[in-house]
């Protein structure tokens, strides 16, 4: 129970949103990528979060950087109840971590362009399966959460400052 918990929690949130924005940037950069016939097209990366104790807190002394360890994510994230008991036993030092990255299973774009060297026998070029609109919506969502986290950070800093000045004996 200390104010620094808030800073670790917000830190984990900023980290996670940063990873998500990185994936979105990569997806948008590859929106027009094309592949040779038979090759694997660029598939949109989607970062999945999970509620997890903040590294360094007393509850999770040995938690590793989750971004390098990508566990299998259940295909249907809508029914995934991970993190539902985040508030059990009065745990205070919680946070968020990147559980992994899933590849979108949307169909890749097919463009009719028989003159392209990448065209298949039917004259279609296989592109990525990135939806620009989806990515922009995701980016706005991510940016909203990021700024909310920053607002919490500023609020916590202000309260700490006030505490310091309130309890100083002049």
């Amino acid at each position, binding site marked *: 129970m200390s104010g620094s918990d808030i800073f670790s929690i917000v830190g984990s949130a900023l980290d996670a949103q940063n990873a998500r924005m990185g994936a979105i940037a990569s997806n948008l950069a590859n929106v027009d990528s094309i592949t040779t016939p038979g090759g694997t097209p660029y598939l949109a990366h989607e970062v999945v979060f999970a509620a997890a104790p903040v590294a360094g807190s007393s509850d999770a002394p040995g938690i590793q950087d989750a971004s390098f360890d990508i566990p299998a994510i259940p295909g249907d994230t809508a029914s995934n109840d991970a993190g539902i008991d985040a508030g059990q036993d*009065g745990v*205070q030092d919680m946070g968020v971590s990147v559980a992994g990255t899933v590849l979108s299973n949307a169909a890749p774009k097919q463009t009719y362009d028989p003159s392209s060297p990448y065209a298949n026998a039917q004259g279609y070029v296989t592109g990525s399966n990135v939806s620009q609109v989806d990515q922009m919506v995701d980016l706005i969502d991510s940016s909203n959460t990021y700024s909310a986290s920053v607002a919490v950070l500023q609020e916590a800093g202000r309260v700490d400052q006030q505490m310091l000045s309130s309890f100083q*004996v002049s």
Partner: protein
Amino acid sequence: MSVGFLNFYTGVLAVQQQRASLLANNIANADTPGYKAVDIPFDDALSAQLADPSAAPVDPQYRASATVALDGNDVSLDNERVESAQNGEQMVGAATFVRQSTADLITALRPNPSGV
């Protein structure tokens, strides 16, 4: 020495501190699939804290009126931001009150208040 209102405000600040962590956690998990926002009822937590300051903090509860999104997440970012700002303001208010009420107490504790 036991000063009544100091004990009271210790409890108030402890509960507000716990709420601040929970609200920060809710905002951090605003995009976590399946996460449900939690909070503690202030009055219950404060009574528990005042009855036994060494007791474990009360268990957080899920928000009753939350709308659940398609991914199972029910965090309302706006709501959490408002709650967080409100909680911070209350903490500042409590700290200010304690400061003003303790000013005389601190003066009385000094061996030589006038400094002569």
